[in-house]
C-alpha cells in the first residue's frame, strides 16, 4: 500500500533529495536554492575570529590559529578546528607548513586570488571543499573538519584532516558466529562505509548521506545497491527518514522506532546487525541499509519475520544442516512462546490429555505447592527475567557469580522449599534456553509469553489457540516498508521458500527474494554494475 502511494512522485522526489544532500555536504557555493542561512562569512579574519569566538563561547575544545604572513605580514589566515577531531600532524604537514612556505616565498601578483592559489596549488590535502556562509562553516567545524579563512574572502576552505577515531574493527559481541568474517561495524560511519565498500566493489553501491537531529546533527547514510534494491523502498526510506523530527539521534535504535510501519507492534519490522558480511548479504538481496554515525548497529529494511531465524552461518554451511537448524530455531521460537502457557493449560484444564503415568508424576510434583500453576509460572518466569536482566547489566566478572546464585536459587532451593515444582523449573529453563535461540524476537517473546500464560489460565488450550490466532493475524497485517511481514509464507512466494524455513544449497539459490522486487531477480545475470544499470 505504501509503495503504491509513494511510487508516483518518485522521480521528482529523488531529484529533490539529491539536491539537498549535495547542498548540505559538498556545497559548491554556486547554488541559489540554498537559503539555509543568510549570514555571510565576514571578510576580515578579525571579524571571523570574533564571530567564531561568540559561537563557540565556552567550548574549550575549539582551537584556532591565526597566521599572518606574506611579505609584509599583511595576509592573515585563520585555521579553525575542534581539538581532537583533527589530526594535527597532518594539518601541520599538509596545510600550515605549505601555506606558510608559499606565502613567505612567493611574490603575489596584483589581482591574483590567494584563495584560488591556496586551494589549487598549495594545500596538499586532497579533500577540500568550500563553505560559503557562517552556518556551513560552523557545521563543518563541528563535524571535525579544519576551516581555513583568508583575509578578504567571504568563503572558507574546508579541509578534511579528520583523525582516525574510535576503536578498531573487531569481532562483534552480540552476533557470534562459528564461521564467516569476524569484522563488525564500529562507531565511525566512515570506517563502516569503507567496510561495506571493500566487499562490494561496484559503483552501483550507493551511499546517500543525510544529517538528522536538530542538536546532534548525526550523519546518517542510506546504503543500497542500485538496480538490485527496489527504488520504491529506497525512496520510502528517504521519505520516512526525512519525516523524523527530533533533536537527537543517538543510535539507530531511535531511527528504528521512528520508521517502523506499525509503531506499537511487538515484532521488529526493522532489522539491525553489527556484522559486516551479514549486511552485505542483505544489500545483495535488495535490502536497504541505514547507517548512523556513532553506533555499530546498522539497520536493514525491509525486515521480514523469516529473517529472525536466519543466521549468517547458514549460508556458509551445508544445506541439510542449515535447514535443520532453521526448523530447530522455529521450534524454539514456538516453544519459548507457548510452553509455560501450554503447561498451565495442561495442568489446570486438560487433564484428559495427560497420559496416566505422566499424570501421576505431575500430580506428585505439584503436591504441596501453595501456588496455582499460573502463579507459580509467573513467579518463576519473572525470577528468571530478573536474573537475565541482572546478567546483562552486571560487569561480566560478576555475571558468573550471578548465574551460580540463579541456578541454586531457582533450581534447587525453591524446589526444596516447596515453592516451585520440579517440573516448573524444567519448563522455565527450557523456555529460557529456547528464547535465547532467536535473539531478534527475544523481546516480543518475553511479553507474549505472559499473554499466552494468562490466556491459558483462563481458557486452557482454547485461550492459547485464540491468542496464537490473534498473533498470527497481527503478523499477517504487519508490513515492513510495504512488504508483507510473513512473506514468503504468506503471501506464498514459491521462489522465495528456498531461503525461508528451509534452505537450499547456495548454488541453487539463483534468484534474489522476489517479494522485495520483481525486477532483476537473477543472481547470475547483471552482477556487473554496468549491465545492471542498463537493465534498470
Amino acid at each position, binding site marked *: *500500500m505504501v509503495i*503504491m*502511494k509513494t511510487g508516483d512522485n518518485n522521480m521528482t522526489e529523488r531529484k529533490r533529495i539529491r539536491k539537498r544532500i549535495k547542498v548540505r555536504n559538498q556545497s559548491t557555493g554556486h547554488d541559489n536554492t540554498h537559503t539555509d542561512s543568510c549570514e555571510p562569512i565576514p571578510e576580515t579574519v578579525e571579524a571571523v575570529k570574533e564571530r567564531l569566538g561568540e559561537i563557540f563561547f565556552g567550548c574549550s575544545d575549539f582551537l584556532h590559529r591565526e597566521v599572518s604572513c606574506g611579505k609584509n605580514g599583511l595576509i592573515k589566515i585563520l585555521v579553525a578546528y575542534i581539538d581532537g577531531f583533527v589530526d594535527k600532524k597532518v594539518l601541520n604537514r599538509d596545510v600550515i607548513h605549505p601555506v606558510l612556505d608559499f606565502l613567505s616565498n612567493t611574490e603575489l601578483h596584483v589581482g591574483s586570488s590567494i584563495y584560488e592559489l591556496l586551494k589549487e596549488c598549495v594545500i596538499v590535502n586532497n579533500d577540500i571543499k568550500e563553505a560559503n556562509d557562517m552556518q556551513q562553516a560552523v557545521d563543518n567545524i563541528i563535524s571535525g573538519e579544519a576551516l581555513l579563512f583568508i583575509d578578504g574572502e567571504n568563503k572558507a576552505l574546508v579541509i578534511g584532516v579528520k583523525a582516525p577515531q574510535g576503536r578498531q574493527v573487531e569481532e562483534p559481541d552480540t552476533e557470534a558466529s562459528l564461521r564467516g568474517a569476524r569484522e563488525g561495524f564500529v562507531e565511525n560511519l566512515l570506517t563502516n562505509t569503507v567496510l561495506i565498500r571493500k566487499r562490494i566493489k561496484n559503483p552501483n553501491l550507493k551511499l546517500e548521506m543525510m544529517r538528522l537531529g536538530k542538536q546532534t546533527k548525526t550523519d546518517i547514510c542510506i546504503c543500497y545497491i542500485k538496480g538490485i534494491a527496489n527504488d520504491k523502498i529506497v525512496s520510502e526510506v528517504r521519505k520516512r527518514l526525512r519525516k523524523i523530527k527530533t533533536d537527537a539521534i543517538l543510535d539507530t535504535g531511535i531511527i528504528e522506532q521512528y520508521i517502523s510501519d506499525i509503531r506499537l507492534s511487538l515484532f521488529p519490522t526493522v532489522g539491525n546487525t553489527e556484522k559486516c558480511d551479514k549486511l552485505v548479504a542483505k544489500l545483495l538481496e535488495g535490502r536497504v541499509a541505514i547507517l548512523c554515525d556513532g553506533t555499530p548497529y546498522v539497520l536493514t529494511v525491509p525486515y521480514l519475520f523469516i529473517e529472525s531465524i536466519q543466521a549468517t552461518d547458514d549460508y556458509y554451511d551445508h544445506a541439510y544442516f542449515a535447514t535443520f537448524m532453521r526448523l530447530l530455531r522455529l521450534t524454539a521460537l514456538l516453544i519459548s512462546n507457548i510452553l509455560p502457557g501450554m503447561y498451565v493449560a495442561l495442568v489446570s*484444564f*486438560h487433564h*484428559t*490429555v495427560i*497420559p496416566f503415568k505422566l499424570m501421576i508424576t505431575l500430580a506428585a510434583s505439584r503436591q504441596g505447592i501453595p501456588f496455582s500453576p499460573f502463579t507459580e509460572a509467573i513467579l518463576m518466569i519473572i525470577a528468571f527475567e530478573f536474573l537475565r536482566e541482572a546478567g546483562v547489566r552486571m560487569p561480566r566478572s560478576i555475571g558468573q557469580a550471578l548465574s551460580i546464585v540463579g541456578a541454586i536459587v531457582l533450581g534447587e532451593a525453591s524446589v526444596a522449599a516447596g515453592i516451585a515444582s520440579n517440573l516448573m523449573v524444567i519448563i522455565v529453563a527450557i523456555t529460557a534456553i529456547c528464547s535465547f535461540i532467536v535473539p531478534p524476537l527475544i523481546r516480543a517473546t518475553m511479553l507474549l509469553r505472559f499473554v499466552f500464560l494468562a490466556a491459558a489460565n483462563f*481458557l*486452557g*488450550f*482454547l*485461550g492459547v*489457540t*485464540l491468542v496464537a*490466532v*490473534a498473533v*498470527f*493475524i*497481527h*503478523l*499477517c*497485517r504487519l508490513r515492513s516498508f510495504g512488504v*508483507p511481514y*510473513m512473506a514468503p*509464507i*504468506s*503471501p*506464498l512466494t514459491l521462489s522465495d521458500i528456498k531461503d525461508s524455513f528451509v534452505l537450499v544449497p547456495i548454488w541453487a539459490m539463483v534468484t534474489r527474494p522476489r517479494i522485495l522486487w520483481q525486477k532483476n531477480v537473477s543472481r547470475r545475470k547483471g552482477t556487473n554494475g554496468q549491465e545492471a544499470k542498463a537493465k534498470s
Partner: protein
Amino acid sequence: MGKVRISSIQLFLLLSGFLFGSTVILAPAKGAKNDAWLAILIGGACGVLLMGVYAAIALLNPSKTLVDILEEKLGKVAGTIVAILYVWYFIHLASLVFRDFGEFICSVTFPEMPMVVVIGLFAAVLLYAVNSGIEVVGRLSELLVPLIPVIMLIISLSLFTVHDFTAFLPILENGITPVLKTALSFITFPFGETVAFLMLFPHLNQKEKLKNVVLISAIVSTLMQVLIFFRDISVLGSGLMDRATFIPHLTSLIIPEFNIEPLVDINLLIGGGIKISVCLYAASRALCQIAGINDYRNLTGAISTFCVVLSIWVHESVLDLFSWTEKVWSYYSLPFQVFVPLLLLLLSLKKSKPSNAGTANEK
C-alpha cells in the same frame, strides 16, 4: 485505500477453509448413515456445479460484487431488497457457525463455561481479523488452513490400527431416498454457503484462475469429506456415529494410548474462523455498499456483536440447533444459494452476449 488483492492460492485456501468450516465437528451427511459417502459424492458433484454457477456469475460480471450485480440485474429497488436479505443470510450463517463453535467447546472442553464468553472471545479475535481487511484474512489462511489437513492426517494415521474397513457396508440398506435427501442438505451445507464468496471474487488478482480455484477446492473438500467419513465410520461404527453429538471429535477420542482432542479444537477454530470471517466481511461489505458507506470497517463491530447475540438467541438448545439445521436449513437456504444465483446467471448470460464480457475486462 487502494485495491485489495488476493491471490489464487489464498482464495483456494479461503474456500477450502470455508468448506471445512464447522464440518470439522459436524459430519454433514450424517443423515444417510452408512451411505453417507454416496451422499457426499452426489452432493459434492452438485456442489461443484453450484460453485461453478457462482464462479460463472463472477466471471460474467467482472469486478462487481454481489450487491452490484443484484442492483444491476434486478433493478435498484428489488436488487436492494434481495441484497438486504443476503446480508441477513450471511449474518445468520455466521451466527450459526458461532453457535456450533460455542456448543462444541461447552459440551466437550469447558462444560462450566458460559457459552457467550467462548463465542464473545472468538468473535473479538475474528473482528480483529476482519477489520484488518480481507487481504490479511487471505494471508492468514495461508498460514493456518494447511494445518487442517495436517491435523486430520495425524488423527487418521493414529487411528490406523483400530480401523474396521468394511464398516460402511451394506450399501443402500435403506434405499436411495435418504441418500438423496442428505445429498441435498450436503449441497446447502457447506457448498451452497460459498455464495458469500460472491462478495470476495472481485478481489481475485488472476481472474482466469477463478474457475480452476473453485473447482479444485470443491473437489478437494469433497474428497476430504469422504475420507473423513470413512475414517469415522470405520472407527465408530454406524450405531455410535448416529448417536454422537460431534462425530469427528468422538473419533479423535478413540485414538489408543494418547489423547489429541485439543487438535480438533484447533481445526474448528481455523475452519470456523475462516468461515465466520468471510461471512462477516461479506455481510458488512454488502451492507455498506447498500447504504453507500465507503469503509466496511465501520459496521463490522456492530455486525459481529449482532452475530454473537443472534447466535445465543437463535436456538434454545443444542438439539434445537441440530434438528433445525437438519430440517429447515436446506429449504431456507435454497433461494439464497440456488434460485437467486441461477436467476442472476441467466440474466447475466442474456445481457452479456453481445458485449462478450471476458476475463480481460479488468485492468
